[in-house]
């Protein structure tokens, strides 16, 4: 197997903060690799190191076989970068933004024009091509961002949180574009806070937290890693929630979560189900819903890191009041 991206032991400190504490990655050529983690986990720093924007303090990395530190100019000829910290010029029109990149990449005026028109058509931006990018909607902006990173037909594409802040329809459109690119043989490194996004697009996922890869595998492997099962209990009377929480936590030997009036807890042993039924019955708690199901990536993340990927203030408050 060939690897489009390899990183070994990347460490990067910013003053007292350690953004990367030894990141190892191996991304097979022609696949989508998901870097999943909460804000501040080190995803963007990893991308910046791989895209030659930032030097790592320790470790080394290659992109397309070239060392990002020793051969940055070669790496830059192979990559495209888009996302929260790499963006288009808002004062230029869609066409001008793509012309700018094309000309900087050494295309002739005519070639740059042709490439811009082609990309604008592909991304359904032809109608808006003559308008300043600042007048674009969020989804159009991201499509233009992505188009700008594709002008040079990169072999490796870095997408740093490409759908953050997008509505579901724009997000789905962007996902379709990414799938098309991969079908054409492009390798994509995608960072995201959305577990669903990694699950949808990536053939392999690395979960990052506090500057380290804490788990890696296919979405299925990651789900299986945590036992893969989740116990869900919803008491008929919300007043019984504390009892349910206590029972679920004790039986599963893990910290349960509450969403509205439903308690969930990851379990490794399917035999806990009868135990929970007996204990709740003995406590006289009537139950509206009781089930064992496969874990979502969200729950995988929780069981790996001890905190949720996307913090939900309401859930936190409820957990505290019940604790």
């Amino acid at each position, binding site marked *: 197997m060939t690897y489009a991206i390899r990183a070994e032991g990347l460490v990067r400190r910013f003053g007292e903060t350690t953004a990367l504490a030894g990141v190892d990655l191996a991304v097979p050529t022609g696949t989508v690799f998901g870097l999943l983690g909460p804000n501040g986990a080190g995803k963007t720093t990893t991308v910046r190191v791989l895209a030659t924007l930032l030097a790592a303090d320790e470790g080394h990395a*290659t992109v397309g076989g070239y060392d990002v530190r020793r051969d940055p*100019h070669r790496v830059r000829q192979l990559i495209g970068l888009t996302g929260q910290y790499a963006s*288009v010029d808002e004062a230029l029109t869609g066409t001008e933004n793509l012309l700018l990149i094309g000309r900087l990449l050494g295309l002739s005026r005519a070639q740059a024009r042709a490439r811009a028109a082609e990309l604008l058509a592909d991304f359904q931006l032809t109608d808006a091509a003559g308008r300043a990018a600042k007048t674009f909607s969020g989804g159009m902006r991201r499509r233009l961002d992505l188009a700008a990173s594709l002008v040079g037909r990169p072999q490796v594409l870095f997408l740093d949180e490409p759908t953050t802040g997008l509505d579901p329809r724009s997000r789905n459109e962007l996902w379709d574009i990414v799938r098309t690119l991969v079908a054409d043989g492009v390798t994509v490194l995608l960072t995201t806070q959305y577990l669903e996004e990694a699950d949808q697009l990536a053939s392999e996922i690395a979960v990052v937290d506090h500057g380290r890869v804490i788990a890696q595998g296919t979405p299925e492997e990651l789900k299986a890693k945590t036992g893969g099962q989740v116990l869900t209990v919803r008491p008929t009377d919300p007043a019984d929630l504390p009892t349910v929480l206590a029972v679920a936590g004790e039986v599963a030997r893990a910290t349960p979560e509450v969403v509205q009036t439903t308690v969930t807890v990851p379990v490794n042993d399917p035999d806990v189900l009868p135990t929970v039924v007996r204990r709740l019955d003995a406590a006289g708690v009537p139950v509206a819903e009781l089930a064992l199901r496969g874990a979502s990536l969200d729950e995988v993340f929780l069981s790996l890191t001890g905190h949720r990927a996307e913090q939900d203030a309401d859930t936190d408050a409820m957990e505290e009041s019940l604790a």
Partner: protein
Amino acid sequence: MTAATATPATLPAPARRLGVVAGLRHTATLSWRSLVQIKHNPMELLDLSIQPVMFVLLFTYVFGTAIAGSSGDYLRFMLPGIMVQNALFATMTTGFGLNQDLTRGVFDRLRALPIARWAPLAGRILADTVKQAWSIALLLAVGMILGFRVGNGLLGVLAAFALLLAFTLAASWISVLVGVLVNEPEKVQIFGFMVIFPLTFTSNIFVPTERMPGWLQHWVEINPVTIVADALRGLLVTGPVAGPVAQTLLWAVGLAAVFAPLAVRALRRRV
């Protein structure tokens, strides 16, 4: 290591280095980018034009008679100085635009491209120099409509342009430094207002040195704005040339020598 080589054998290996000619081409393309923005945002051109014109009109007719006895005499005294003030304010565009690029991620996108490392900054500075030249020419044109007459012909005018552009090019490193250090573009403007306003008003560009209080005169005489204004007066109207011009060039070299390394170091640190 062989397994990590993903470059298909059919493609030529990408070039390892970049030539200076390519870097100059990138610089030209990036200054096109700064200048073409004016087309979509005509307000920027008005910004570059209205303020200087308004200042010339206001100072000539409101203060002219009071300070110099007649608005024509005052225009002759003040126009070279107002060119210096305007040029210094205009250097802030460089830091403002650079900071916008840094905070909005445009700079990162450019740096991830296979282009010369110095091209994004050089492109911006080149474009801003073009804008500077426009403002200086506009000020001179307005002045001439109001009755300003050049004393040393076309050569004097060209020399004045070259000198002022050289000085602002050096001074714009201060703006670059500020643009790199602050976290939002507006703070560059605040800096410009807080520093350039007092600096230019405590020079001899609007009021002759001898009309100011004694303690202030000492400062006015060593203020580089006074020196540059005197050099421009010499070149455009009349008066000593060699001394003020030499001192202006010394200031330019000094400013660049101090602030260019600081700015480049700060930029390397930030990105």
